[in-house]
Structure formats: structure tokens, C-alpha cells
């Protein structure tokens, strides 16, 4: 049952990413050129509603569908890892035109070369795992 729920949430996510063109390399390029409001509208409205959702859950102590407390883990304090990691991510996001969610959506949409990007992203994750104790966090 829970598996089916996760699958349906994923399908909803995939359809949204494809149909909103957030999975389009062109839209990412256009966003970084500040030539369209589209991506800013998507992220901005998702964020405003997201803040409303999370603050409401906290304030009204809303429980999950299974009656459990919804826990939010604060992100660890640091500056360098977020800034440097973020910049590296941004370089890749603009070049590949896809972030880790849409990458998978594009596999379903039938664009085979995106598998090369996913393989690269797995290698990048692997390299991070190897060097993680040697870089500033």
C-alpha cells in the first residue's frame, strides 16, 4: 500500500516536471538568462506554499496520515560546504540542463543521452564519498 502511494507521488512529480517544462534544458538556460518568469514563478510559488505548509504543520502540530509526529531535521551549520557545493551543482545544472529529479523524468520521456548525465551524476556522488573527509565542510 505504502509502495503504491510513493509510486503515485513520483508519477505526479514526473508529470509535473515534464508538463511544466521544468525538465527542459531550454527553460533552465532561459532562467539563467533572466529572459522568462516561468521558472521563477514555479520555484517561487512552490516555495511560498511550501513555507505555508511547513509552518502550518509545525504550528498546528499536524500529524502524518499514520498518526506519527512529522519531524524536520535542521540542516547542519556550515558555510563553505553549502556555497562551494552549491556553485559546483549550479555549474552542472546549467550545463546538463537538468537537476536530479527531472533527470529521471527525461529517461521516461525517452531521451537516451540523459542516461550519460545520470551515470556522470552517480560517479560525481561516488567521488564525493571518496574525497569527503579531505575537503572543507
Amino acid at each position, binding site marked *: 500500500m505504502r509502495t503504491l502511494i*510513493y509510486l503515485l507521488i513520483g508519477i505526479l512529480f514526473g508529470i509535473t516536471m515534464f508538463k511544466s517544462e521544468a525538465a527542459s534544458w531550454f527553460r533552465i538556460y532561459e532562467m539563467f538568462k533572466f529572459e522568462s518568469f516561468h521558472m521563477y514563478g514555479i520555484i517561487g510559488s*512552490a516555495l511560498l506554499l511550501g513555507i505555508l505548509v511547513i509552518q502550518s504543520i509545525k504550528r498546528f502540530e499536524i500529524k502524518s496520515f499514520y498518526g506519527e509526529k512529522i519531524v524536520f531535521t535542521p540542516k547542519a551549520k556550515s558555510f563553505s560546504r553549502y556555497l562551494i*557545493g552549491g556553485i559546483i551543482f549550479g555549474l552542472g545544472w546549467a550545463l546538463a540542463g537538468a*537537476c536530479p529529479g527531472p533527470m*529521471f523524468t527525461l529517461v521516461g520521456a525517452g531521451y537516451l543521452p540523459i542516461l550519460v548525465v545520470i551515470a556522470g551524476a552517480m560517479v560525481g556522488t561516488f567521488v564525493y564519498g571518496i574525497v569527503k573527509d579531505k575537503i572543507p565542510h
Partner: protein
Amino acid sequence: MNFIYEPWPWYIAGPMIALILLLLLMVGKNFGMSSNLRTLCTLCGAGKTTDFFKFDWKSQKWNLIVVLGAIIGGYVGANFLSNTTAVVLNPETISDLKTFGFESAGTAYLPTEMFATTALGSLKNLVLLVLGGLFVGFGARYAGGCTSGHAISGLSNLQLPSLIAVIGFFIGGLTMIHLIFPILF
């Protein structure tokens, strides 16, 4: 119902993403896609090399199922919910891209120069796809999240680290498009 077959405007897509965030929280999970890349590394046996990949991947099985859904969603969106997949861009963006050699701008969903199956025959293109992936994978793990984990989940929870990461995403993206693209293309 015809609007479903048209590209979805931002004011449909944004609230849908917030709904996905809400649904995942309500089933006791968090919205974050890049951690799946770590799980996939573990599944490929990376736990033998370093501790970072030594964890019980089954605790992340739910997220892999979300990924499977995202793949199916892409298939459904492209094959059953779209009359046309050409992305209508700002005319200025199109003329910019044409000067870089992206003739498919304005007529396709992804640049055919990079994402048509035949583009796999170009060594330069293969290198760019691998590099793009490498940076996304390395950067997301280093920063502890990607667009979903930081820009949506983290910022929604008013986390300062996520704000720093998102500023980083934009510094990187702007550098790539404005400074590095003119060299690459």
C-alpha cells in the same frame, strides 16, 4: 480538459510541487531527489570502498520508488499528455542559442544537438554530458541537497544553509551560462 495537453503554466506547476512536498511529509518522508544518487551508488557496491556508502539502502527504498514514479510520469507526460513538446521560448533566448549553434531552440523539448540519440556520436557532446552529470552529483552531495532538498524543502523550512546553497546554485548557473558557454559553444 484541453489545458492538460498544453504546457502547464507556473501557477499550476508551483502549487503541484508544494502538494508533492505536503504529500511526502504526510507519509512521514522528505522531499529530496539527489540522495537517490547515493543510494544507487550503494546498490552498485560502493559500500565496499568507503563508509559514506555503507548504509542500509532499504531505508531509502521508498525514495527509489518515487524515482520510478518520476520515470513513469515522464513517459506519461511525453506520450499521453502532450500534443506538442516544443518549448516556446523568449525570442531573444532563441536567437542567443542559435548563435551558439543550438538550431533546435524553439522547436524541441531538449536541444537535439545534445539529447537526440545521434548526439551520442559526438565526443565533445559526450564529454559535456558526463561533466554536467559529475558536477550535479558531486555538488549536490557536497551541498547536502539539490533543487528539491534545498530550494524547496530547505527554504520552505526557513533553513539558512539552504539559502546559502541556493545562492551557490545561482552563482554556478550564471557563471556557466554567461562566462563558460561562450567558450564551449
